[in-house]
């Protein structure tokens, strides 16, 4: 597991951009963390890094949004499982149909979307609870690669500033 401290939204975005350099079609990322942790901000960075058509915004209401590539690469499929109650409902929105040709990011996917692929990247973002202690609104990011697709050393080199 790789652990990082991210001090603000701009650097969360930059982390997503760096992560995007490692991503290709078929990759699945599961993002977890409480309301307001920064999952969408990280995904916006990934979208910018992949060079997909934006804007990348929270897909909670529409459940999933496909952002085609503007640079001839893989599209980003941005899924939000916040409103989904179980595996059946995730299957209903046909995320598995586009897995192979897309980079798929599932917010609120922990404990639900693991079955989509054996190899995946799990990212959990924690924010402190209660009032922001001071001007710094720190996020703790934990990245775990599951399966041989992910090389921990390469992840660490790419994600660390």
């Amino acid at each position, binding site marked *: 597991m790789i652990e990082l401290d991210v001090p603000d939204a701009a650097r969360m975005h930059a982390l997503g951009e760096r992560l995007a350099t490692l991503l290709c079609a078929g990759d699945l990322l599961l993002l977890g963390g409480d309301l*307001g942790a920064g999952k*969408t901000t990280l995904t916006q960075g990934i979208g910018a890094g992949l060079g997909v058509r934006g804007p990348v*915004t929270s897909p909670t209401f529409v459940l999933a949004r496909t952002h085609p590539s503007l640079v001839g690469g893989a599209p980003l499929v941005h899924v939000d499982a916040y409103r989904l109650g179980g595996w059946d*409902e995730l299957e209903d929105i046909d995320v598995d149909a586009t897995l192979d040709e897309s980079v798929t990011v599932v917010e609120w996917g922990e404990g639900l979307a693991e079955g989509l692929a054996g190899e995946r990247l799990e990212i959990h973002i924690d924010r402190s*609870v209660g009032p922001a202690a001071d001007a710094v609104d720190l996020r703790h990011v934990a990245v775990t690669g599951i399966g041989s697709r992910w090389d921990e050393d390469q992840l660490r080199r790419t994600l660390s500033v």
Partner: protein
Amino acid sequence: MTSQPLILGIETSCDETGVGLVRGTTMLANAVASSVDEHARFGGVVPEVASRAHLEAMTPTLHRALDEAGVGLEDVDAIAVTAGPGLAGALMVGVSAAKALAIAVDKPLYGVNHLVGHVAAEQLENGALTEPVVALLVSGGHTELLEVSDVASAAKLLGGTIDDAAGEAFDKIARLIGLPYPGGPHIQKAAADGDPSSIRFPRGLTSERDMTRHRYDFSFSGLKTAVARWVETAERDGVPVPVADVAAAFQESVADVLTRKAVLACQERDIGTMVLAGGVAANARVRDLARERCAEAGIELRQPRLSLCTDNGAMIAALGAAVVEQNLEPSAPDFATDSSLPVTQVLV
């Protein structure tokens, strides 16, 4: 009046299956199979959003619309359908149905933009939009500020949310303070007994720096986090959460930013009419503040009734009617759905 073509509109971009019939700017039918009551049972969970639900609702909703208008499928002159933006699988059902119908009755088919459809809906309420308008679209899935000079052909995005949609923020905050789904009406109800000035929650993207980069954009993620932190702090200190005050202060922040930026857009772009649409336009505070600020600024506020504000088929038929009136080319028979269709593309 009857000389104007009869347009059938189909909408399936999210969880409403809508079929409407329109001639010009006259609505003849607006049948919607809604699943909000179903959602309420699951506390905001949406099994019905599956394409399958649209599939099951499509034929009965189509028949209901035709009966309501007292016409037959053979009377339809053209078909319009939402091509995007929306949920890919859901859009696919509407587009497939529309293509099948168009082939069956041998009539032209137009794949149109859902967002611009919301603006076209206002034409069914108060007549044709003849001047450019600024449209504020706020719903569960959308928070956008558009400039529309011509609904059929000239729409552009002035700004939009950079993170959460306004309606989504209502739903998430409702869950946070223990109110049921859907969040909008319940927060409005709770807020009626609260003091909006008791807590000062942040106004997203209104600082001087943000107004340079994100002049007409919105952000509700920071507000959501601020409310979450405020509630967590009260809970940690063992203080009961003043639900009415939190609801009122949160609602005030959303209504304030939405209406402030929409009025600013009208003023800076020298546009005299604002259209307020989308489900969140049903929120009394948003509506009142919009009315108040538009009146102060000398802007005409136009807003369709609630059944035309939420997703429906008549708005798509209204947009189709505008497109047909301008003799624009029908969509290619093999056009595809586009879940993130840009607002500048009114017709695919």
